[in-house]
């Protein structure tokens, strides 16, 4: 084994990789119409690499679906289109046009915006194309209610999750059976931690959106969150001013709802080193989680959020 692989030994990446590939292959073998939810973030990038490996030398046998709220960072959209082109992927981009026409604004409409532009949009898109299996990049270490979700999450015809009545999941024997109208959300990265994801990105040299790397960026400090001014839709509140700060993002989403963190990590190994020392769980940088108190994520998941 060469030095590069040795360095990642402690993460047990081979085991995680094999488990995830096993899950992806099972669901594609048994599931009717699979799709991969592609959020453009680091977890999606890892999942994409795993799917390539799972089916090699065949191409990935399902399309990618991106729910575009039109408020993503511009660099994310550019990255998405370029990766899809370079890898020759079938990419479906879906936007909730009704919400767009109503002019929902993440700066003003908070929870309603998230519900309509993300949760509802996702449900509509899955229904429109009739997908029965949707792969997502969620990990159990992200958040309390995710810690309890199975690898395969059964959703009813309204896409809602019933945490009280989850299917038992035994060994590596996944029950992929569904009744008409039901669908499965599948999380191949369930057992990965944030450290594992970055270690894998380093080991495999996977390209990720540049926003993950520290750089001088224009930001506004709003309620303690460093919000990057990504376009002119962001209006400054009285007393706010735009500052240049060297920041990077731990998670990516809609720019008005994603706080950056001050950092010096400009390369993958530096990010990994920073994550190793990191002391806050990553979702705290997403403002949407704070809307409805401690159990907001569980509530959103029950309603059909990924």
């Amino acid at each position: 084994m060469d030095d590069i692989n040795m360095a990642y030994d402690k993460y047990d990446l081979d085991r995680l990789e094999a488990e995830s590939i096993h899950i992806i292959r099972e669901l594609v073998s048994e599931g009717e119409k699979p799709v991969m939810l592609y959020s453009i973030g680091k977890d999606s990038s890892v999942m994409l690499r795993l799917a390539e490996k799972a089916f090699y030398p065949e191409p990935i046998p399902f399309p990618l679906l991106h729910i575009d709220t039109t408020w993503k960072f511009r660099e994310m959209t550019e990255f998405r289109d370029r990766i899809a082109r370079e890898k020759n992927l079938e990419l479906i981009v879906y936007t909730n046009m009704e919400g767009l026409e109503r002019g929902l604004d993440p700066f003003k409409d908070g929870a309603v915006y998230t519900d309509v532009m993300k949760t509802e949009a996702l449900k509509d898109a899955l229904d429109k194309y009739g997908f029965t299996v949707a792969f997502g990049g969620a990990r159990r270490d992200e958040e309390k209610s995710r810690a309890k979700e199975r690898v395969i999450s059964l959703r009813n015809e309204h896409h809602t999750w019933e945490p009280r009545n989850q299917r038992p999941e035994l060994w590596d024997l996944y029950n992929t059976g569904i009744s008409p109208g039901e669908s499965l959300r599948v999380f191949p990265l369930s057992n990965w931690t944030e450290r594992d994801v970055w270690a894998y990105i380093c080991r495999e040299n996977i390209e990720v959106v540049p926003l993950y790397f520290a750089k001088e960026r224009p930001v506004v400090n709003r309620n303690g969150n460093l919000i990057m001014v990504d376009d002119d839709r962001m209006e400054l509140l009285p007393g706010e001013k735009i500052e240049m700060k060297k920041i990077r993002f731990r998670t990516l989403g809609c720019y008005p709802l994603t706080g950056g963190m001050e950092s010096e990590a400009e390369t993958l190994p530096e990010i990994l080193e920073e994550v190793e020392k990191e002391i806050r769980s990553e979702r705290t940088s997403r403002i949407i989680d704070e809307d409805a108190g401690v159990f907001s994520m569980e509530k959103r998941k029950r309603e059909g959020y990924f």
Partner: protein
Amino acid sequence: MSGVLKIMTCGSVDDGKSTLIGRLLYDGGMLSIDQKESLEREVATDTQMETPDFSLLMDGLSFEREQGITIDVAYRYFATDRRSFIVADTPGHEEYTRNMAVAASSSDLAVLLVDANKGVLTQTRRHLMICSMMGISHYVFAVNKMDVSDYDPDIFRSVKEDIEGVAGEFPHSSVMIIPVSALRGDNVVKGSGKMEWYKGPSLLEYLETVETDVRKEEGFVMPVQRIARSEGIRYLQGSTACGEVRRGDEVCIWPGRQSAVVESISEAGSEVGAAGSGKAVALTIDRDIDVSRGHVITSNTELICSSMFQATVLWMDEQPLTAGKKYLLKLATQTINVSVVRIKYEIDPDTGKHISKNRLCKNEIARVDILCHEDLVYDTFDRHRVMGRFILIDKITKGTAACGTVAHQLRRADNISLQPQDVTRKLRGEALGQTPKTIWFTGLSGSGKSTMANRVEKILASEGRHTMILDGDNIRLGINRDLGFNEYDRTENIRRIAEIAKLMNDAGLIVITAAISPFSSDRQIARDIIGEDSFIEVYVSTPLEVCENRDVKGLYRKAKAGEIPNFTGIGSPYEIPENPEITVDTSGKAIDESVSEIMPAIRKYLLAEKPSI
């Protein structure tokens, strides 16, 4: 040790599991700042709390909080400088047995909590049984709440003894028992100043260093997940279950048992020369034989391809199981229709006792006979984990109704239905004034089985009983003369003896058999054929050295000289019976003495109803 250790925790509701894990993370410095802050915020809002309520870390879902118990499995990920851990926190409430099975199925080691002040409870046994059924063989017992019992070493010692007793009932590779106080932190991460009488490691120290090696299973096994095609080449994709595959290996493809040579192997998309167990691989082979999802690729090992087996199942569905019900069975990558033809007995997890049952409800465990509607490739759970575990799926709701493990193959022809008879075994027995039973002597060659069987028959016959003796050697000269001594033939030898014994029991006779019958799975088959109520197992436990010294037939000498391969005790193992009805050691006494020793028990078992032991 290396890599990740997967741990599950179990205990009854008030043993303080969540507190223990919380304490482990808190003292071990493995909590994030925001988790710490939220804990401390809770303390601040509740003035009655002395220490943070660590259980809040684990109880993630709101309705669970309202109920005050953890009802699902929560997974936690943490790492020290020495090792990474995945902890599955599981519910202790017995209603949620199924969630515990879920956690156990993905764990290497179980941490069981025992309240020092309450000692071993029936639930401790239940938890052990579920862990054992799902394949766990490493256990750590945290004897908690030592602070409440003033850190008394005598209390710990007495609980420890009880734990050793109950743990001894289940197969295990390691058992560690540690006195702790989760609330106060003694022996969780750091040692304890209050229990200097305890010299062992703290819970964390132990978990960081315990070895839980991957089981060594025979040969190479890979169930095929899917077939990929590119440029006219087929790639057989799947996860390797055990063993290693190398380029150039000759493999066997089940169920057809065709052979082929491996031409290339890719692991996670890159070409390799060999792949070990637990890898996601794609193989190409040198010839164009039929292979599809559900087929199994092996080398240097045997599997079973048949349509009937006996299994232990844990029922998980609200809809109870009744005999004859049809389900989908998923085993490795095969999904087929099956019927559960018989519930043999329910196993009471609290006592291990067998209970006769005709329906099985949620959270109950039972032995059942499963008939597959087509041939299934499988193995016993003992031999090959991946080929011996399965789930049953409800055909209508598509829910997972049960999980199970294969105990052994059933060889009875499933397409011949039983001819109902007017004159029953009971009537024939009554006509002879007795209850027909089979007394099954098992033990090493030279242990005294045949001699004792003969004496026992003589005594019973002189008392007017109608008996018949079936001696292993004599039968091998007749009906079984086509059989040799390989594993398959030995099993078949026992099966035939058992079937003959059963026919003779049906004829009303008391049957006495004497055959080495070294494998417990074979004796189990015999027990199943003859019937639990009619089977009296007599284990002649004369030690090997004594048998070797006797060497009446000169066989041990030949075996040691290498002239008899697979000779029991020399080249082939004898598996000691776990629960024989009767045990007797003939060494150092006259044979009549040994016979007199067992006659009272034999007479007791020959009574109509099998007495409970």
